[in-house]
C-alpha cells in the first residue's frame, strides 16, 4: 500500500511538473479574488428542498438561492452554482472547486473541527417523515427494529444511527445518495420513515400531504443549519463578509421574510455559531 501511495504521489508530482503548474496554490485572499472576478462560486446539492431544489419548471430554487442572491448583492458579485451529489460536496470544497458551500449543513462538533460555519440560518433538528396514514408510527421510538432511510454522508443519518442505538432492537438504516430518493422509497413503501431535519420534512409533508406526514416530536438534539467554508486562512475574509451579510439580512427582516416564504414560519436562530449538541 505504501509503495502504491508513493508511486501515485510521484506520478502526480511528475504530471504537475510536466504541465508547469505550481504545486502549492498561491494563497491569495479569497474575498479579494471573488470580488475581482465578480463571481462567488457556491457548491451545493439540489435535492434538499426547500433549501436547494429543482422546482416543477426545472429551475434551481429555494431559500439558498434567494439568500445567496442577496449575499451576492451585498458583496457586489454574481453567484455561480456548482451542483453535486451531497457526498461529493465537501470533498470538492476541500479540493477548492468552489469558494463555499450552501447546503446547508447541520452544525456538528465533528464538522466544526474541520470546517468553518456561517452563523445559523435555520433550525436543523432531526425528525421523522412517514407515509400519511401510517398509524404504526406515532412517536419516534416506534421505528425500533424497522428500516429507516436518510442521506448518505449527512449529519441527519449520524443522528438517526445514534438514536437507533438507544432503542431496543436498534434501527436499520438505508443510505441514499440524496433525500429525494429516500422520499421516493418511503412513498414506494420500501422504508417506513425518512430521518431529516424538521424544516425539510415539514416542507415535503406540506407539499404532498396525501403521501407524507411528519412524526412529532423531533427526536434529535436541537441543532442549526449553517453554510460551510474551509478553515484555510485565505478563506476567512470571505466567510466573515458572508456572516456580516447574513446578519444584516437577519436584522433588516429579509431573512425572516424568506423563512416565512419557504417554511411558512420563522426560526429564532442565534447570531453566532452556537456550541453544537451533536
Amino acid at each position, binding site marked *: 500500500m505504501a509503495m502504491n501511495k508513493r508511486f501515485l504521489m510521484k506520478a502526480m508530482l511528475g*504530471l504537475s511538473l510536466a504541465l508547469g503548474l505550481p504545486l502549492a496554490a498561491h494563497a491569495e485572499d479569497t474575498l479579494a479574488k471573488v470580488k475581482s472576478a465578480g463571481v462567488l462560486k457556491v457548491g451545493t446539492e439540489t435535492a434538499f428542498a426547500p433549501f436547494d431544489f429543482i422546482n416543477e419548471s*426545472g429551475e434551481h430554487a429555494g431559500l439558498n438561492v434567494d439568500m445567496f442572491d442577496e449575499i451576492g448583492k451585498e458583496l457586489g458579485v454574481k453567484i455561480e452554482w456548482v451542483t453535486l451529489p451531497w457526498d461529493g460536496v465537501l470533498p470538492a470544497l476541500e*479540493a477548492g472547486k468552489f469558494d463555499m458551500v450552501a447546503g446547508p449543513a447541520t452544525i456538528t462538533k465533528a464538522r466544526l473541527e474541520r470546517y468553518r460555519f456561517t452563523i445559523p440560518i435555520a433550525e436543523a433538528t432531526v425528525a421523522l417523515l412517514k407515509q400519511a396514514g401510517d398509524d404504526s408510527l406515532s412517536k419516534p421510538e416506534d421505528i425500533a427494529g424497522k428500516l429507516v432511510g436518510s442521506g448518505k454522508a449527512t449529519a441527519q443519518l449520524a443522528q438517526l444511527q445514534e438514536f437507533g442505538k438507544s432503542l431496543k432492537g436498534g434501527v436499520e438504516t438505508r443510505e441514499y445518495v440524496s433525500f429525494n430518493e429516500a422520499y*421516493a422509497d418511503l412513498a414506494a413503501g420500501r422504508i417506513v420513515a425518512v430521518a431529516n431535519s424538521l424544516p425539510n420534512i415539514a416542507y415535503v409533508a406540506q407539499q404532498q400531504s396525501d403521501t407524507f406526514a411528519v412524526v412529532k416530536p423531533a427526536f434529535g438534539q436541537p441543532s442549526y443549519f449553517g453554510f460551510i467554508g474551509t478553515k484555510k486562512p485565505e478563506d476567512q475574509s470571505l466567510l466573515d463578509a458572508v456572516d456580516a451579510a447574513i446578519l444584516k439580512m437577519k436584522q433588516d427582516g429579509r431573512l425572516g421574510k424568506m423563512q416565512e416564504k419557504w417554511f411558512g414560519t420563522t426560526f429564532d436562530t442565534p447570531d453566532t455559531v452556537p456550541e453544537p449538541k451533536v
Partner: protein
Amino acid sequence: MSLRLFELMLWAAGYTVVISAISIVIGLGIGLLVCAAKLSPNRLLSLPATLFISFFRGVPLLVQLLLIYNLLPAVGISVPSVVAAVVGLSLCTAAYQAENLRGGFNSVPKGLLEAADMVGLTPWQQLKRIRAPIAFRLTLPALVNEAILILKASSLISVVGVIELTRMAQNLAASTYKPLLFYSVAGALYLVICWTVAGGGALAERMARVGRA
C-alpha cells in the same frame, strides 16, 4: 410533461452529445498516442502505455471522475466540472480505443506490408498509405461501438457537477414526482442518440468499404 420541461430534457441531451463527442475525439487522439507507445519496442514507452490501459480499463469511471475532480487539485491542477468530465471520459475511452487500434494495426496482413516493402515504400509511407487506412477500416466498427459506450457512460458525469441528460431526468423526476415519465423520456432520448450514431456508423462502414475490391 410541459413543453418547457421537455425543452430542458432536450437541452440536457444536447449537452450529453456535445461532451461525449468532444471526449471521443480527444480520446481518439490520446488513444493513438498510447497505441503507438504500446507498440513501441522501447519498454520506457510501452510499459507506461500498458499501465495506462490497465488502470483506465480497470477502475470504474465513477471513481476515475472523482479522482480527477477532487484529487488533482491537491497537486495544483484544478479543473472545473465540465473539464473534469471531458478529461475523465477522454482518458477512459482512450484506453479502450488504444486497444482497438492496436488490434486493428495488428490485423493488417503482413503480406501487404511485405508487398509495399518490395515496391519500395518507406516505413512512413507504408504507415500512411497502407497500414493506417486499413487499420482504420478494421477499427471503425469498434470506434462506433466505443462512441455509444461513452454516450451512455456520460450518464455518470453528474458526480462531478455536470448536469446532463440523466441528471436532468433525476432532478425533474424528483421535483414532479414522475420518475416513470422522466426516466422513460431520458431512455428514449438516449435511444435516439445511440441509434443515430449506430446508423451513421453503419453508413460510414459502407462508405469505407467502397474502396475495397
